[in-house]
Each structure stands twice: as C-alpha cells, then as structure tokens.
C-alpha cells in the first residue's frame, strides 16, 4: 500500500497551469450544482480527498499519514472540549486544551533546532490547520461556537482550496457559508469575481513572481555573494527582488485559493489588499497576510489587552499596548520557525508598531500644525515600504548565508 502511494505522481496545489485544468474540471459538477441551488456534499468530499491525496502522495506520503493523524487528534480535542464546555468553564482546562492543541506544531517547530532534523509529525500546512483548530477552541470557550460535529469540523479543517497555505478561515464564518447555498445571482457574481482573481493570480504567480524570483533575484544574489564587502548595492537588489517575489508569489497563491473557494460557494477571506500602499506599519498589517494578522489580532492581541486591562496589570495604557504589540509579533516570529532571522523579523515588526504608535501620539499632541499633503503621504508610503522590505530581507534568511555562510 505504502509503496503504491509512494509511486504515484504528486501535484503541489496550484503548482502548474495543467493543475488548474484538472481542478476546474473536477469541481465543474459542484458549480453546476450550486447554480441549481444544490450542494453535492459527497461529491465535494470525494474531489477534496483526491486532490489532497495528490498533494501528499508520492515522495511525501509520510506527510499524508501525519495529516490524517493530526486531523483526528484535533477533532478529538475540539469535540472533547465542546462537550466539556456545555456544562463547565474552567480557565485551567481551557488553557490546557489550547496547549494540547498547539503541542504538535511546537514539536514540529522546535525539532530542527533541538534534534537537527524535521519532525515526522510535520506536514505541509500544519501551521494553518493549527490556527483553525485553536481558533475554534477559543470561540467554543466564548460560547460562540454552539453547534459542531466531527464531520463539519473536519470539513472546515481540510477545506481543499486552502489546506496547505491558507487563507485562515474561521469555523463560524465557514460553516455559515457552507450551510447556505448562495442565490443564483449571488453565486454567478462569486464565479465572476473568482474568474477575475484566478487570472490575476496567474499574472502574479506565474509571470510577475517568476521574473522577480527566478530571473532577477538569482542575478543579485550571485552578485552580492561575489562581493566581499558587508554592504553593497547588490544586497539592496536582493532585498527588493525578494520582497517583490514574496508578495507576488504569496498573493498569487492566495488569489487561487480564494477563487477556487468562490467556485465552491465559500467566501474565503482575502489575504492581501494592496499592502505596499500602506502609509504606516499598522495599516500594512491590515493589508498584508490579512487572515494571519487578524488571527493574531483577535486571538492574541485583543485577548491579552482585554485580560491585562481587566486585571490592571499595567498602569500605563501606552506601556500595555507596546507590550501587547511585542508579544503579538514575537509570537508570529516564533511561529515562522526557531531561527534568529524569523525571531528578529518578529521583533522588528513589533518595534515598528510600537514606534508607529508613539509617533502618531506625538504628532497628535505636539505637531498639530504639521502639514498633511500629497508629499507627506508619499514620504510615509516610502518609509513604510522600505522598512517592510528590510524586514523581508531578514525574513528571507539570505543574511544568514551572506554573513555566516549557512546554507538553507
């Protein structure tokens, strides 16, 4: 059985143009069903199973087993906690449940640094599934998730268009979409938008990201590595090329995931909203990897501030907001992985938010007469863009190779 699975061809999600032909053909019956006001749940489960199988078969068959075990594990936790929550509500049990739910990802993220190789528990997309599971536990505690069945939870967890890299949906939102078949005109509008996103995604991922990532980036990388000085124009080139590649690659991927979700009648949230137009770092996080940053905002930042305010942990509001920003972004850094450059990335993003808040307060208090015009707006966009690009250079890990000779 294993040998057979290992010998099958593997299809990375949205990896090649032909993948889209297969995928669209497979979901066409679903679209026809939705057009006539029907959701073919069994057919959808079958198609989802096949495409998820194809993402993890072949050489990555071990990940398929990890995925199955992981989903069963999280389903038991969520259903168990939901059952418990019907009659009890102890904070200790809630925190323990969250800890058990994040345990696999903690092991997966710690393994490379602690034991030197990747954990067998890991699979592509484990982080995204963890966010969905923990979010569901938190909303269950708040009494917001009232009804949940193992089947509906699994369907939410492994929703095929978004399984490996998001966007991160929320259980209640997803389930509401899933239970209601959209009106015909509303569905046609979704399909229309979906087609637009699909082609925008092609442009982003297969054309623009290709040029930045496969053409320009290697040129600057080579030139930078050949130059022994610690700072060079080529390093700046690496920074911009990587940053642009990162955006167009990830935004393109997210557009695919959203488009396919739309075709399947589910309004998966958008992940990017023209992030480089941001006038400050706070605005940037409302436009960049939105489903992740909002997850952190709602489940970490706001809950921490809520508790700290209620229990009066801090006398000064500004100190509290700074601590909350740092906590939020450092956690995000650690989530990316336990390496100095991810952690530094999180630290700098946190610091950026703290400084940004301080500047906004200072401006409101002392610079009432400061001009506010097109020029200052462009300065703000320029500063934000370059700060973000700099943090992406750190995030890329290139500096680890450049300064310390470590290969990735």
């Amino acid at each position, binding site marked *: 059985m294993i040998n057979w699975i290992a010998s099958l061809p593997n299809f990375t999600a949205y990896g090649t143009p032909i993948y889209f032909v297969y995928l669209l053909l497979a979901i066409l019956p679903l679209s026809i069903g939705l057009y006539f006001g029907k959701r073919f749940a069994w057919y959808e489960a079958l198609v989802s199973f096949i495409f998820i199988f194809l993402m993890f078969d072949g050489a990555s068959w071990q990940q398929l087993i990890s995925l199955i075990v992981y989903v069963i594990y999280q389903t038991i936790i969520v259903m168990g906690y939901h059952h418990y929550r019907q009659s009890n509500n102890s904070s200790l049990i809630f925190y323990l449940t969250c800890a058990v739910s994040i345990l696999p990802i903690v092991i997966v993220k710690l393994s490379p640094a602690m034991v030197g190789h990747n954990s067998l528990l890991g699979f592509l997309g484990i982080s995204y599934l963890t966010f969905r599971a923990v979010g569901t536990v*938190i*909303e269950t505690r*708040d*009494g*917001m998730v009232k009804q949940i069945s193992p089947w509906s939870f699994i369907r939410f967890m492994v929703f095929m268009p978004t399984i490996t890299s998001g966007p991160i949906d929320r259980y209640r939102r997803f389930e509401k979409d899933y239970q209601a078949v959209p009106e015909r005109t509303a569905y046609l509008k979704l399909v229309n938008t979906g087609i637009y996103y699909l082609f925008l995604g092609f442009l982003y991922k297969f054309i623009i990201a290709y040029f930045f990532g496969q053409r320009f980036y290697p040129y600057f990388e080579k030139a930078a590595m050949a130059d022994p000085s610690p700072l060079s124009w080529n390093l700046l080139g690496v920074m911009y090329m990587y940053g642009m590649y990162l955006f167009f690659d990830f935004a393109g991927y997210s557009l695919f995931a959203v488009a396919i979700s739309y075709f399947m009648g589910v309004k998966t949230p958008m992940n990017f909203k023209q992030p480089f137009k941001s006038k400050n770092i*706070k605005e940037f996080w409302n436009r960049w990897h939105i489903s992740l940053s909002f997850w952190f*905002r*709602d*489940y970490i*930042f*706001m*809950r921490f*501030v*809520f508790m700290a*305010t*209620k229990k009066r942990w801090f006398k000064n*509001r500004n100190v*509290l*907001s700074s601590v*909350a920003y740092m906590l939020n972004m450092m956690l995000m850094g650690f989530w990316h992985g336990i390496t100095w450059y991810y952690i530094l990335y999180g630290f700098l993003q946190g610091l950026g938010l703290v400084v940004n808040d301080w500047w906004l307060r200072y401006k409101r208090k002392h610079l009432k007469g400061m001009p506010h015009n097109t020029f200052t707006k462009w300065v703000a966009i320029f500063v934000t863009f370059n700060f973000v690009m700099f943090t992406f250079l750190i995030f890329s890990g290139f500096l680890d190779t450049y300064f310390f000779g470590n290969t990735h």
Partner: protein
Amino acid sequence: MKEDIINILADATGRDASDFADSSEDLFADGLLDSMATVSVLLALQDQFSIQVPVSEFDRSQWNTVDKMVERVKELQND
C-alpha cells in the same frame, strides 16, 4: 444610550465626543477605533450596561458604527 456610547468611545480613543457625531460613520475604516481602543470600549460596555461581550463576539462588521453598537447592546441586554 447613544450618548453613553459616544462618551465611552470618546474616553477610549482620547478624542472629542463631536468626532463621533455621525452615528453611521464606519469607526474602523476611518481609523477612529483601533484594537486597543476597541478593548476599552468592550470593557466599558460590559460595566455600564451589565452585558457580556466576549472578544470573539466582536465581529467588526456588526459593531462598526455608533448606531450598530446601540443596536447590539440592546440585543445583548434582552438576551
């Protein structure tokens, strides 16, 4: 109740009550409310109106104007 809510908003954001005069204005889109201020608003609503508003109940699209806040608070009071 509307006035109370406007006062809560003004307190939480450090702005004048007159900034919230337009009760159909989107508070999040215009940057009047950020996450920090939102939490202060939530806590103040809980104290003043003795209602329970868990953070995850706070779906921004349902709480984004003064009018909607009044409506939601009334709903929660009746629950």
